[in-house]
């Protein structure tokens, strides 16, 4: 509860220059007749002058240095956290894009390789493999004949139009199949 004259709060505003012209004039008229408010206004003006003087009072520069250091340290910390978060999002996006690409793009079919055919069959082959139907259809021709002067068997390789069908004929130098 504020004791004293009921004009105290208006006088308080008047002393600080916070009344408009009409209100200020009314306050001045009251002060002419109220000694208590006059003393109050005088004391309050001194208080307000003291408070305004505090505005110019310097603060120890060390406090500003400390504040700046704390702020910049927090700012750097926030930038680091932001960079990590951004990197995380980019990695996640790249992974998602890679997975999507693998799902959407069709896998290429493997290219069929030509069967490798020996130019000379090993002598160990005792029973040549013949595809009957392919032989009937295809033209036979002798690819290679190895002449042997010894009693070693002769291997005759017959190549057809079908590259998968090759006929090996093993014979002696008399044209008979060795037993």
């Amino acid at each position, binding site marked *: 509860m*504020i004791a004293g004259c009921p004009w105290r709060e208006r006088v308080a*505003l008047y002393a600080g220059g*916070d009344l408009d012209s009409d209100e200020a004039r009314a306050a001045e008229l009251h002060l002419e007749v109220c000694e208590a408010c006059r003393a*109050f206004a005088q004391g309050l003006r001194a208080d307000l002058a*003291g408070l*305004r003087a505090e505005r110019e009072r310097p603060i*120890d520069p060390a406090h500003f240095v400390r*504040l700046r250091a704390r702020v910049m340290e927090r*700012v750097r910390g926030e930038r680091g956290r932001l960079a990590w978060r951004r990197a995380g999002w980019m990695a996640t996006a790249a992974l998602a894009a890679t997975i999507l690409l693998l799902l959407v793009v069709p896998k290429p079919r493997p290219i069929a390789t030509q069967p490798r055919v020996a130019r000379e069959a090993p002598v160990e082959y005792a029973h040549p493999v013949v595809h009957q139907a392919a032989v009937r259809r295809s033209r036979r021709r002798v690819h290679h004949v190895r002449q042997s002067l010894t009693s070693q068997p002769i291997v005759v390789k017959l190549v057809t139009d079908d590259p998968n069908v090759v006929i090996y004929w093993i014979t002696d130098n008399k044209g008979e199949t060795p037993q």
Partner: protein
Amino acid sequence: MALLAATAAIDDPRRDAGETARARDEAAFEGLVRQYERLVLSTALRIACNMDDAQDISQEVFLRLYRNLDKVRRMENLTGWLYRVTVNACFDLRRRRPASAPVELANDLPSTESDPQQTAAEAERRRALELSLRLLPEKERAALVLRDLQGLSTEEVAEALGSSAATVRSQISKARVKVRAFVESYFGRRR
């Protein structure tokens, strides 16, 4: 000298472009802090009434400034924004950290440089005023600090407090009456 050294470090050709950009941003923001540190710290100090709380409050204010740089750059009245954020940060801190009894902190007044030329009477008056501020309710203290210590107009105080001009005038007048009453009783003069 420190500023020159900082500039030289920023312009070091060995740094990559990204690091240089970050360094420039940091230097620019630190410049902003230097420009407004007195406004923020002094306001926080007068409302919070102790330097440790004022440091915490001021740090929070500048971090909010940093996080809202894009918005703040488009703002016409950065000073008003800073006052508003500082006041809100003071209220937030007080909610989280209730103040000790103000009379018990009579020996722990805000640390400002003492003026050697100040007379003993002036020093005593200053002490009485500082104590009277501590005894005020939070919102009345904020209104009085912004109006009579920081020199804002009633309208600017209203904007900073998020109140109407009429409410601010009421808070200011009540605060001034209480300050006067305390100073009178402090010096043992009553009418």
